[in-house]
């Protein structure tokens, strides 16, 4: 890397914006390929294997297909909101990558923010606005209902998500992404397994994947809030969905698995980062294909009655440990934390019944 690119602000900004855009688009294509090929064996079939060797060109064929389709805008739709919706859903995905450290001590590609993790939490709450705009602007009652459900679910799951990140911040003593990655000798996934599981569940709900995809359940419903979208705008939603999965995997890899830190990370930092991101994503695919889809009341009660108390207990436990050991939790606490996580999850699941919400019918 030439030094003038790093020194000149605008050159730095332009080059790394293009790098991030390319990374997101290539990453999304790779993720789509991994997911569709991964689904095959899980569902006792082969998966896409016609386009190119091992079906590797399938995402490209999909992209071309979806870009060539006609863009239909409903007659009574709010045209401005309908067009801006997918853009605003996709925007936070790109913005998150501005602070994610790919390699070494430089930190984020565009900005090495002091408050990186707060920035990530704040920016990922912007996508909700785009979902609302899409649902409202489509002038379709199903898209509006679906948008309200998505938003209700997203703001519910944001609370345990942020609380699990707060526990990490307590343990590592830093708010910047690089500081979190290097703040503790142990990866957080070992030091606080409960926090990692909460983060994983909450982020799966945030990105509408896995067992939480009831809002756009593509095999039985009509795609939720983007029912009225076609062509390139639909492609934008698709890109945003997988881009968000990529972003959440990257955040989880950085926060809970120490990101670029690994053997020979002066040269191989980017490799460890991408490998860990891919590991998290494969875990997401595995969970998605394993668990049955939830009902909306089960989803809400899971957030409020299971994840939120667990996140608060996790925060309390980590806080006590930080105070007891003077800010530096020793490595052997991980055995205690693993045991505690198992006891807590098993114990709480005795109390917890998914669902149980009353359904009221009005005639």
């Amino acid at each position, binding site marked *: 890397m030439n030094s003038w690119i790093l020194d000149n602000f605008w050159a730095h900004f332009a080059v790394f914006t293009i790098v991030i855009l390319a990374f997101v688009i290539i990453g999304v294509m790779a993720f789509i390929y991994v997911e569709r090929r991964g689904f095959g064996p899980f569902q006792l079939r082969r998966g896409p294997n016609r386009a190119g060797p091992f079906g590797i060109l399938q995402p490209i064929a999909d992209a071309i297909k979806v870009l060539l389709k006609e863009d239909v805008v409903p007659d009574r739709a709010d045209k401005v909101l309908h067009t801006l919706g997918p853009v605003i859903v996709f925007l936070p995905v790109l913005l998150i990558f501005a602070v994610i450290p790919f390699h070494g001590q430089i930190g984020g590609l565009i900005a090495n923010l002091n408050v990186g993790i707060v920035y990530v*939490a704040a920016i990922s709450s912007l996508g909700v606005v785009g979902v609302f705009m899409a649902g409202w602007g489509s002038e379709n009652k199903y898209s509006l209902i679906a948008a309200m459900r998505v938003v209700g679910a997203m703001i519910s799951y944001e609370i345990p998500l942020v609380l699990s990140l707060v526990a990490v911040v307590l343990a590592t003593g830093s708010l910047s992404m690089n500081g979190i990655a290097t703040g503790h000798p142990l990866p957080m996934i070992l030091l606080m397994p409960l926090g990692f599981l909460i983060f994983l569940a909450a982020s799966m709900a945030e990105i509408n994947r896995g067992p939480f995809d009831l809002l756009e359940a593509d095999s039985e419903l009509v795609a939720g809030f983007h029912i009225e979208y076609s062509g390139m705008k639909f492609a934008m939603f698709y890109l945003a969905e997988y881009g968000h999965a990529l972003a959440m995997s990257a955040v989880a890899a950085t926060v809970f698995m120490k990101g670029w830190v690994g053997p020979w990370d002066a040269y191989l930092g980017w490799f460890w980062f991408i490998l860990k991101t891919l590991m998290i994503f494969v875990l997401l695919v595995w969970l998605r294909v394993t668990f049955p889809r939830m009902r909306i009341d089960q989803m809400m009660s899971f957030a409020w009655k299971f994840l939120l108390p667990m996140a608060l207990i996790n925060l309390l436990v980590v806080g006590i440990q930080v105070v007891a050991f003077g800010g530096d939790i020793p490595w052997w606490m991980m055995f205690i934390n693993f045991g505690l996580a198992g006891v807590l999850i098993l114990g709480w699941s005795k109390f917890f019944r998914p669902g149980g919400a009353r359904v009221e019918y009005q005639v």
Partner: protein
Amino acid sequence: MAVDIAFWILAAIAVVSAVAVVTLRDVFRAAIFLILCFFTTAGIFVTLNADFLAAMQVLVYIGAVAILLIFAILFTRDVQQGNPSNKLKVPAAIVGVVLLGVMVSSAVTFGWPESVYLPELADTADIGQRLFSENGYVVPVQIAGLMLLAAAIGAIVLMREK
């Protein structure tokens, strides 16, 4: 220089979107402009080196306040017909003029002294020290938290059926 340009762009967008919030008849678009206004305010915080405040502005005001506002709008009936006009134009005008007068007069008469210290470079720890150190504001922060908790419990009690 660049910071000045950024400030004026952000300030202009913030003022225009704030005007749009009160003048637009489409309530949903007004809410979207409110979000734009909050976002540009966060941008102004960034130009002042207050990164933490900017992130909190986005997290709290856009991620929570504005979204709940839109929820409230969507649950309101007849929202499609736009902002229902009511008969409080005269009181609203009086209150608006009085408030504007107070703000303008205090802004004009205030001396605006400039601090002799350079701004701290994005130090979140200072905010924490200021809030939670021994002669900080621990008690007010705790009281504010208790009030929010009381409000949340009150909302649940109100919504609960007998």
